[in-house]
């Protein structure tokens, strides 16, 4: 499993179906990840689309030294932070649309979080600070290694390790006795 690198190589060689495979494999995970930052499922989807279009526009920017998933998450994180930096005002959602947004978010979560254990943790990490939220997401939901998570978050392995340790500690407090078994 090379997390899309071989598919992307095939896409660069002219196989259009390879891009479908990449989208199939990584798109929803990326939207879910970006949503951790922007807290808006539609914006996250929009940013994920832009991230994927980067793969087509800047074809040779990806150097195959990291997995395609790691690369996409790095670009996605940059786009999310860029969006947050340039967002002038908070987006207000109409009450009529709020239900739809919540429903979309829930359906994505259901798709991404198959087991009960992950759903409980997902609900709990919403109360954590952003960095902790992201590190838990990358390690527990995306099954990334510490190295890959460090690359996405632009930190070193030790920082990721410390951040994860503190995040777990916080989660244990939030989840109580159940947390011991979940983490």
């Amino acid at each position, binding site marked *: 499993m090379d997390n899309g690198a071989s598919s992307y190589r095939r896409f660069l060689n002219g196989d259009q179906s390879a891009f479908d495979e990449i*989208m199939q494999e990584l*798109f*929803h995970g990326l939207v879910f990840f970006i949503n951790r930052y922007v807290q808006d499922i539609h914006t996250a*989807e929009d940013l994920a*689309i*832009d991230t994927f*279009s980067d793969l*087509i*526009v800047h074809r040779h920017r990806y150097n195959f030294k990291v997995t395609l998933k790691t690369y996409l998450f790095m670009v996605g994180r940059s786009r999310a932070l860029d969006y947050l930096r340039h967002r002038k005002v908070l987006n207000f959602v109409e009450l009529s649309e709020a239900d739809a947004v919540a429903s979309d978010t829930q359906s*994505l979560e259901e798709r991404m979080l198959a087991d009960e254990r992950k759903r409980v943790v997902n609900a709990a990490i919403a109360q954590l600070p952003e960095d902790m939220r992201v590190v838990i997401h990358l390690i527990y939901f995306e099954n990334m290694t510490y190295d890959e998570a460090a690359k996405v978050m632009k930190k070193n392995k030790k920082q990721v390790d410390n951040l994860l340790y503190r995040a777990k500690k916080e989660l244990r407090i939030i989840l109580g006795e159940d947390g011991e078994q979940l983490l």
Partner: protein
Amino acid sequence: MRNLDECKAEVFRRSEERIRKRKKTQKYMLALGSTFAFCATVCSVLVVSGILNMGYETAEKDNQMLWEDEIPNTDNIQDTNDMPNSDVQDVLESTGCLYVQVDVETYGESHMNSHTVTDETQVAGLFEMIQNIFDNEDAVLREESPDFETIMYQNGNQDDSNDLSGGSSFKNMEYVIRFKTSNETYQIYLLNRGVLLDFTKKKALVLTGEELLDLKTAIAMEE
């Protein structure tokens, strides 16, 4: 939330749009760069040609100044014998060298008078008068004008072309008019029995009565 196919279509649509925009920007930058390069080339060509022109003019001026510096005074001419009088005249004409003094020597049977005029206006006026006499169309057509060498020989003067400053060479002449420049270069005219001789150009001209009278009046001037 859109389904995966819609998202895929959106990805390709945005990609095409971005590629189109990027190509447009590249073309714009290329056009801008070409224009800038063209302007820079034209400007540099103009500047370089200007500098070269200036350098050429400076070099010409330097050469001219060098030439002026190299014009030897009459002593040098006498010693080295390397500069004919006609060359001296050419140099004077080309450099626009001004005469600053005129010595007029008047020879009688047994005496010699001389006076010097240093007023530049008077000197220039006299020089112009003599020049006008020689340049006069009427003067050119005067066929009876005698040969310079003959007159010099008849008067017992040697044609020592190099001795421009010589004082005693022209003792058989009635008048010796010696123009002098600031750098000690001479232009000599002789007047004898109504004949004006340009010693430098070796020309002789018979003056009309009026010309002779005017010239004698002019050379009689005192400061």
